[in-house]
Structure formats: C-alpha cells, structure tokens
C-alpha cells in the first residue's frame, strides 16, 4: 500500500517513553511498522509501554538522563537508528520572585542539557544513520508567556535553538533535525500542574479548538517528521497547539 508516512524498516529511539507523549509516540510508531527502542527511568511504567507496542523487535533501556553515565550507556546500547525522538521533560511553576538555582539546574538538566549530550553521544557513536531524522519535543512555551513558566520556557526555547544548529551542521549527511511545539496536552505533566480544575477549564476555552491535545495528536506530528514524507523538512519548528497562539 502506498504510504509515505510509513515507518516500516525504521528503528526509532524514544526518550520519555514511560508516559504521556513519549508512550503514545512509541505506540503509534510501532503501529506504523517501526522497531522501537524505548527509554525512561521508571521500570514498571516503561515496561507497561513496552507491552503496549504492536509488532516485534522492540527493546527497552532504563536510563536517568540527568546522569551522564546513563546517557553514555544508552548511546552504547542503542542500535543504529533511523529516528530519534528526544522527548523526556519536566516542568515547574515558579513566579520569578521564588526562582531558585536548584529549579533551573533540574529543569535545564533534563530539558536542555540531556538532549544536547544524548544527541552528541549518538552522533559520535555513529548511531544516527544517513537519512535519519531527529525530533525534539519543545513547546509553545518557547514563544508564549504564562506567569510562573519562565524556567520551563527558557529550557524549551533552548532545545529548539539547538535543533536548528544541528539541522545546519548535519545537513550534508543528511540527518534532519526538527522540533515539535505542542500546546497543552492531556498527560500526567498537565494533571500535576498546580492550577485548579477551574483554571485549566478556563484555559481550554482560550484554545480556538476548545480543548487540549491528546498525546496521540502530538505523536502523529512527530511521525510525520520521522517519516520520508518530510524528507525536505529540516530545522523547522512545528506547532501543534489547537490554534492557541493565533
């Protein structure tokens, strides 16, 4: 069957696969024929994702991306890849008067530094094949302002910036690099925010599509960027935000 979005014969590494967007991405990739290498910290939740994958030939690797040795081991154990979804992330809500160095250390460590070091490690170990595609999960936070979101937003704009530099430096291989920028998505990250249910409901009403995204809807955008359908797309930032930034 003709399908330029197919991931048949592609091996894809997905970080943050034990939950939310990462889990949905792994599940959808497997349905489109990819062999998935999934990673996360929580063994039980990662294994649950593993059991939800379609087809066979998948593998799972536990790694804490704040530990440099774990990143090294992940790069070592990873097979040669056609796709890499750099998605693990954390958030916090801190108004500026209460920002602490430790908040920045933990958010930048997972959201920015780990993506940079893991990407470098995969490249140096020649685990990203010719014609492979890398997708970073950034956020519309990289260009919008919400009170309390400054640290998270800085980490997300930094990773999107890094993506553009990668796109330029590896275009000759070619390896493509793009970022996806979701608006709010119904995942644990959103459930755990400090905002009240009423505040979240009111926030949804700001979206022209009047709801938050389902994780799958972000996965489908990631899949487009992984697939041959996006062969001429590199260095771009793709918004999936129900129109909220209009």
């Amino acid at each position, binding site marked *: 069957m003709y399908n330029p979005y197919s991931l048949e014969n592609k091996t894809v590494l997905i970080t943050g696969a034990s939950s939310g967007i990462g889990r949905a991405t792994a599940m959808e990739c497997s349905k489109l024929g990819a062999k998935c290498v999934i990673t996360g910290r929580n063994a039980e939740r990662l294994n649950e994702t593993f059991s939800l994958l379609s087809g066979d030939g998948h593998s799972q690797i536990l790694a804490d991306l704040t530990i440099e040795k774990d990143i090294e081991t992940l790069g070592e154990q990873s097979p040669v890849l056609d796709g890499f979804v750099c998605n693990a992330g954390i958030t916090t809500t801190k108004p500026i*008067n209460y920002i602490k160095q430790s908040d920045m250390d933990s958010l930048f460590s997972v959201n920015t530094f780990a993506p940079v070091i893991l990407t470098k490690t995969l490249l140096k170990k020649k685990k990203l094949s010719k014609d492979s595609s890398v997708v970073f999960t950034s956020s519309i936070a990289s260009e919008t302002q919400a*009170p309390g979101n400054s640290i998270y937003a800085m980490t997300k704009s930094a990773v999107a910036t890094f993506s553009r530099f990668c796109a330029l430096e590896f275009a000759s291989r070619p390896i493509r690099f793009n970022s996806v920028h979701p608006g709010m998505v119904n995942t644990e990250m959103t459930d755990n925010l400090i905002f*009240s249910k*009423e505040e979240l409901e009111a926030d949804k009403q700001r979206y022209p599509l009047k709801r938050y995204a389902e994780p799958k809807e972000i996965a489908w955008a990631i899949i487009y960027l992984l697939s041959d359908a996006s062969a001429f797309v590199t260095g771009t930032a793709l918004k999936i935000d129900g129109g909220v930034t209009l």
Partner: protein
Amino acid sequence: MDINEFIEKFAEIFEDTDRAEFQADTKFKELDEWSSIMALNVIAMVDDEYDVLLKGDDIRGSETITQLFEIVKSRK
C-alpha cells in the same frame, strides 16, 4: 507552626497592601492586590517556607488566611 508567622510571610508577598489589612480572618481574595499571579506567589512561598505543595484547588477552597494556614498545617 504559628499563625502569626504565617500571616507575616503571607503579607510580605504583597507590595501595596497595608500590613494592617492582613489578619487571621482576612478574606485574601478580596484584596485589591490579589491576582492569579499572587496565587502563584503564595504557593511558592508555602513551598519555600513550609515545604508543603499547595495546589490551585487549595487556594480556591480557602477564603481566609486561617483556612489556608490550616491546610498547610495539616500537611506538615
């Protein structure tokens, strides 16, 4: 935990509201200076000073400073 100390720390978050306006039975959401950003500051202050994670629903569910204090105390 001491209510007066809590009121003191609560009052410090505000810039323009007179200190005398902050009493145990003050309905803080009725203060002119109250806003959703102030709510975030209260949550962050409680996290810093008392190591308790309040949520927006706790703020929503409290009217007076005492009510908020009781929530923080119950989670200590």
